[in-house]
């Protein structure tokens, strides 16, 4: 315990004993569980976990079952982060008073929440955790929609995405607002580590999770989570969609250290046109009609601009 788990390659990683179980009720092909497995398997340390209301929580704690093999708490939609922060504060207090039952074991504190629970409804709770400096990691399962309640838009839904509350049709092309930049907002709290990850890049994920679990202080992780139901693609294609997302740079992978130093952690060998990413998902189908086609060009321009900005920030090294 206490040592960083050695994961040199995928074969070594596959000797992990999962602490997340099957026969949960997540959809076939759901990326939430792929992400959770990669996060939990990155460490052998004891874990104190939480999940905010959302697909992950609702599908893994259906009475009389739990799918979690570690201490796990659920309270509400907005306060998974504070639940874990409370446990962490209690742990610190007991430690200070010399009252820990197993002082040799240092647990890691991780809260999982959806984009709805993080970008919108739990926003101030997370911000509070970051600002108070708890030694916790908050992981967003970012499927860009309130999936669990039937696909309403969140402030993570990107422009043009059709959702039940921003439906595309004769008068609208879907979501009008741009996706909120949560990694930047969280980094602006001056926290030691914030990063964006994706399930297809498991090695990048493990590296970032291990760094985040070791560093002292709050950590924010935004994990892209393709949702077969709401993004509208075949369950077998979850990893293909993830590859399109990272290789089109729609979801660039990077980290921000100490609130300012930005490193890009993945550079695709061949950058794929954003159009291919959009075309693979039903939620963007309408963008290929003549009247909305100009939006695809705008998408590409936005992604190019974002990539340019990230590269400049990395170069500047400030």
């Amino acid at each position, binding site marked *: 315990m206490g040592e960083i788990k050695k994961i040199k390659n*995928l074969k070594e990683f596959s000797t992990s004993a999962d602490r997340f179980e099957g026969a949960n009720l997540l959809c076939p092909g759901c990326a939430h569980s792929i992400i959770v497995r990669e996060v939990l398997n990155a460490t*052998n340390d004891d874990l104190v976990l939480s999940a905010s209301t959302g697909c992950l929580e609702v599908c893994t704690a259906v009475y*009389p079952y739990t799918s979690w093999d570690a201490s796990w708490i659920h309270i509400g939609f907005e306060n998974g982060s504070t639940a874990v922060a409370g446990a962490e504060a209690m742990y610190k207090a007991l430690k200070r008073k010399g009252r820990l039952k197993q002082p040799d074991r240092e647990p890691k504190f991780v809260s999982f929440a959806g984009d709805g629970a993080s970008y919108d409804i739990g926003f101030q709770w997370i911000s509070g955790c970051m600002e108070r400096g708890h030694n916790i990691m908050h992981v967003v399962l970012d499927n860009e929609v309130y999936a669990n309640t039937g696909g309403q838009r969140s402030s993570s839904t990107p422009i043009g995405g059709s959702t039940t509350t921003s439906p595309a049709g004769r008068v609208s092309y879907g979501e009008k607002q741009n996706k909120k930049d949560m990694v930047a907002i969280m980094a602006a709290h001056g926290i030691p580590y914030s990063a964006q990850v994706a399930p297809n890049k498991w090695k990048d994920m493990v590296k970032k999770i291990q760094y985040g679990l070791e560093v002292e202080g709050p950590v924010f992780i935004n994990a892209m989570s393709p949702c077969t139901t709401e993004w509208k693609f075949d369950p077998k294609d979850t990893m293909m969609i993830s590859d399109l997302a990272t290789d089109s740079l729609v979801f660039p992978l990077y980290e921000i250290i100490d609130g300012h130093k930005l490193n890009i952690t993945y550079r695709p060998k061949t950058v794929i046109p954003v159009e291919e990413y959009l075309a693979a998902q039903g939620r963007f189908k309408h963008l290929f009609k003549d009247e909305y086609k100009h939006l695809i060009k705008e998408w590409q321009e936005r992604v190019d601009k974002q990539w340019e900005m990230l590269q400049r920030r990395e170069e500047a090294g400030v």
Partner: protein
Amino acid sequence: MSMENTGWDGFEIGAMLRSFDGPAKDIALTKQEDRNYSKNNSFTASVADWRIIKPVFNKDYCIDCQFCWVYCPDISIISRDKKMLGVDYDHCKGCGICVEVCPTNPKSLLMFPEQKDTEEAIAEWPEKEKKEK
């Protein structure tokens, strides 16, 4: 207990489920087969009836790359000592991701109808696909 006659204090304010029977230490170092799962652990449940198609494993072509293990959402690829051993059909939901990510030619995992006999499936395994020039 009727709602009308009960104050807030009368309700259960939470529930706790134990994942394991007896003491549980170093679960991260204990393989599933050596764990003392409680009846409340979803490991003891099955979602086999969700499937209409299932992945069949043909070990003849497998190179133990473990892509199927890492990307299976449902902890249904059984890998031990860096070797892929097979599919856990109690927990597999038949999504087909493992087949998509399998890099061998022919694939070492393929989807078949749920009722298909495994030996029959293996007998029908496709030949190596020729690369188009």
